[in-house]
């Protein structure tokens, strides 16, 4: 199971990173979201995987490590706040700069033909 | 048809009952604490959210409503079997159709219940209610409204319309007295 889990985490990170390396804001946001999924899973896994062991006292004999879960919760919330900010920033950038390229200007080859919208 | 609530502190009694039951369901308990808090919440929450509720006709015939619900449940179960057969059966036998059903109901809540019922019962899904009266100037008479439905396997259009009107719309008119 651990192998599978690790593969998923690795693959998600790779996908996230690939998207974050794109030139437009929207894929970057997608990539960031994906990367935070990967990161959250990663933190979570740092407490090792446990089946049938929710960290609620009295429900089982062996509990999953609660601390990484708490950390992930914090990370999720912070990630959400950051993503939200980035999303609105992207809108702002599009409005201010006229395009949705991360650098605020279209690369030369593309600058000739106008934005589709 | 009645819009005005009987008690100011209990503007939507059925909603309160529902909320009370929901609270007990959530807590899966009928201990005193939960009953107590359930009662309080069942009163407070409707008051809090009252402003978020457009005036709707109130249920005048609760028993009839209960019967309606049970009937719909029954219909759902029986009809789902039919749909299952349709889905699993040969596709060529299906005769899909768009059918428009004239509506006698005028108010939003009853229409919504009707449309939902139609969607949940076999072979039909509510697509549109038209024309939209959203921007209708005040005082202007409501036009005839239609419910557009998609039917998975239409046998007889007239019969279907009749069944919907008689089996679902009529009781709703009774319940809300409109």
């Amino acid at each position, binding site marked *: 199971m651990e192998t599978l889990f690790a593969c998923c985490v690795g693959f998600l990170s790779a996908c996230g990173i690939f998207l974050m390396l794109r030139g437009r804001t929207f894929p970057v946001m997608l990539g960031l979201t994906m990367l935070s999924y990967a990161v959250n899973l990663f933190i979570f896994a740092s407490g090792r995987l446990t*089946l*049938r062991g*929710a960290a609620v006292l009295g*429900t*089982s004999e062996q509990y999953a490590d609660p601390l990484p879960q708490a950390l992930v919760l914090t990370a999720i919330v912070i990630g959400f706040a950051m993503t939200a900010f980035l999303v609105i920033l992207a809108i702002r950038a599009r409005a201010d700069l006229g395009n949705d390229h991360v650098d605020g200007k279209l690369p030369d080859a593309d600058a000739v033909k106008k934005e589709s919208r | 048809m009645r819009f005005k609530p009987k008690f100011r502190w209990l503007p939507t009694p059925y909603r309160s009952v529902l909320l009370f039951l929901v609270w007990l369901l959530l807590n899966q308990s009928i201990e005193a604490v939960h009953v107590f808090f359930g009662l309080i919440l069942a009163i407070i929450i409707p008051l809090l959210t009252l402003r978020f509720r457009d005036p709707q006709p109130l249920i005048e015939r609760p028993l009839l409503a209960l019967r309606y619900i049970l009937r719909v449940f029954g219909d759902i179960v029986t009809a789902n079997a039919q749909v299952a057969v349709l889905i699993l059966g040969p596709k060529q036998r299906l005769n899909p159709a768009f059918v428009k059903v004239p509506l006698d109901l005028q108010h939003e809540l009853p229409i919504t219940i009707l449309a939902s019922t139609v969607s949940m019962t076999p072979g039909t899904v509510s697509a549109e209610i038209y024309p939209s009266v959203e921007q209708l100037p005040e005082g202007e008479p409501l036009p005839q409204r239609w419910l557009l439905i998609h039917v998975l396997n239409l046998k007889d259009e007239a019969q279907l319309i009749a069944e919907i009107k008689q089996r679902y719309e009529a009781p709703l008119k009774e319940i809300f007295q409109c």
Partner: protein
Amino acid sequence: MLNNVIMLVFAMISVALLLNLWRLLRGPSLPDRILALDTMYINSIALIILYGLLMGSPLYFEAALLIAMLGFVSTVAVCKFLLRGDIIE
């Protein structure tokens, strides 16, 4: 016996989820994909309830309830987006 039944139902739900995924990937239209996603949400409720049964724990109920609520909202939001572009207007 019950365990076997649960496993069987698990299998059914899994197949259903894969079918949903297939439709999601296949499309062809956006509403098709949204429908597939919506169905996937509902099917995962089933999945979570089954987990709860398997572990004999009612702790997962809220997750199921939340999926039901939030799945609905997200479906509605996407539809609204396709209809009007502006979700909140």
